[in-house]
């Protein structure tokens, strides 16, 4: 987590976002200046800047983890304005309104759709939120894990999230057999293995199942429910095991962080449900 490379990626996206209104308004205003200076051409061609701005906006929307379908579709209109002959007044009004629309969409993209995926992956950093808070809160107890065990944790989490339950069980079993892994992480691997094997065979919850002991409560992402609801307790154990392994993989295996970032949505879903 370096602070250095974070800035250029974020700034670059910010500059590109600022370029959207500059291109859209600039092109039309330049067209108006040329027209008033006596160089009279088809005003539709002043929409070139708007078209390029819309392509840029669509590109910025595409790089976001959450896609903005409205921003993605703007080049269609930009292209129509560019190729359709129109009189001077109507053309200028239409282009300026379109430039206003693109500006509002660029602001909306910036505020509501967060940072671009390219910038995020460049930062190699989790988005702020409960997951990041949890990962940071477990950094001390999990920092002693060796990178191989960390890789196993990341791989087991990813396999599970992809629905490859047998592979997740095999990876967990391989990790349990290793020495030097902290006890709560071994327990997390064991719980994950049990759940993965049950899911792979489509079996229901067994009467007895593995749980985290009460002394591991500080490492749990979700509070352990009372024993009155075994179904809920069973699912909470699985969620906690998965999230503990996600955190272990994050702290111990820096090479697996890009893979874990791809699975961030699933981890957030587990934490939020």
């Amino acid at each position, binding site marked *: 987590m370096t602070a250095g490379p974070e800035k250029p990626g974020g700034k670059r996206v910010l500059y590109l976002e600022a370029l959207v209104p500059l291109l859209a308004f600039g092109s039309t205003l330049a067209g108006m200046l040329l027209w008033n200076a006596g160089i009279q051409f088809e005003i539709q061609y002043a929409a070139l800047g708007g078209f390029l701005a819309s392509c840029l906006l669509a590109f910025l929307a595409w790089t976001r983890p959450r896609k903005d379908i409205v921003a993605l579709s703007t080049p269609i209109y930009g292209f129509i304005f560019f190729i359709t002959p129109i009189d001077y007044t109507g053309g200028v009004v239409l282009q300026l309104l379109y430039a206003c629309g693109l500006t509002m969409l660029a602001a909306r993209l910036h505020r509501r759709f967060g940072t671009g995926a390219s910038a995020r992956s460049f930062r190699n950093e989790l988005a702020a939120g409960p997951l990041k808070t949890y990962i940071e809160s477990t950094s001390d107890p999990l920092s002693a894990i060796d990178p191989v065990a960390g890789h196993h944790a990341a791989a087991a989490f990813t396999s599970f*999230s992809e*629905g490859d339950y047998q592979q997740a069980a095999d990876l967990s079993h391989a990790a349990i057999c290793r020495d030097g892994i902290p006890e709560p992480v071994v327990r997390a691997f064991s719980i994950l293995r049990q759940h993965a094997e049950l*899911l792979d065979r489509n079996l229901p919850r067994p009467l007895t199942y593995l749980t985290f002991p009460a002394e591991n409560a500080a490492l749990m992402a979700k509070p352990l429910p009372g024993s009155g609801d075994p*179904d809920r307790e069973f699912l909470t154990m699985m969620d906690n095991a998965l999230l503990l392994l996600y955190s272990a993989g994050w702290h111990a295996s820096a090479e697996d962080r890009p893979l874990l970032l791809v*699975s961030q949505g699933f981890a957030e879903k587990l934490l939020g*449900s």
Partner: protein
Amino acid sequence: MKIGTIDVKVSILSIGVFVFFTLLLVGTSVINPAIRPQLIWLIPCLFMLLVIPIALNYMSRRQYADLAPEYEREAKTVRVRLINENMLGKIVRIEGVVERVHLQFLNRPQYSVADRTGSISVKMFTSPDEDVKVNDIVEVLGQVIRRYMVTGEPVINCVVIRKIDRQQKS
């Protein structure tokens, strides 16, 4: 209506459109006799309003019927809550209760199916073999896709949806 082995279903919307234009044509030709010579091509056009949806439904249902054995073979049973973006493109099987059904009148039904772990939207782009209603327990085979192709949360593009016997299930 059966064509070969395929049970073709015409949507209520298609029938409604056909009835509306039939009444419009009958009414117009009664009021304005000048339109009657045009009936020679208007009547076939009217029937095309029914024939085209039937043909489209037949083609889509035949394609789904061809896909079903492959999905039966490859589908992996998953819990609804564990379906996520990492599973996009995977063929899955879920079992659950139908909580909501809508867009059936378009022959493009969308169901909300829930199991003990959560609920998910199940989209179907043709009419199902069985008439699935709210509170039915169903088995769904389909592919995990995004709701709007490139964006949106994961949903299931359903190829097979069938009711499961409650007693057999319990």
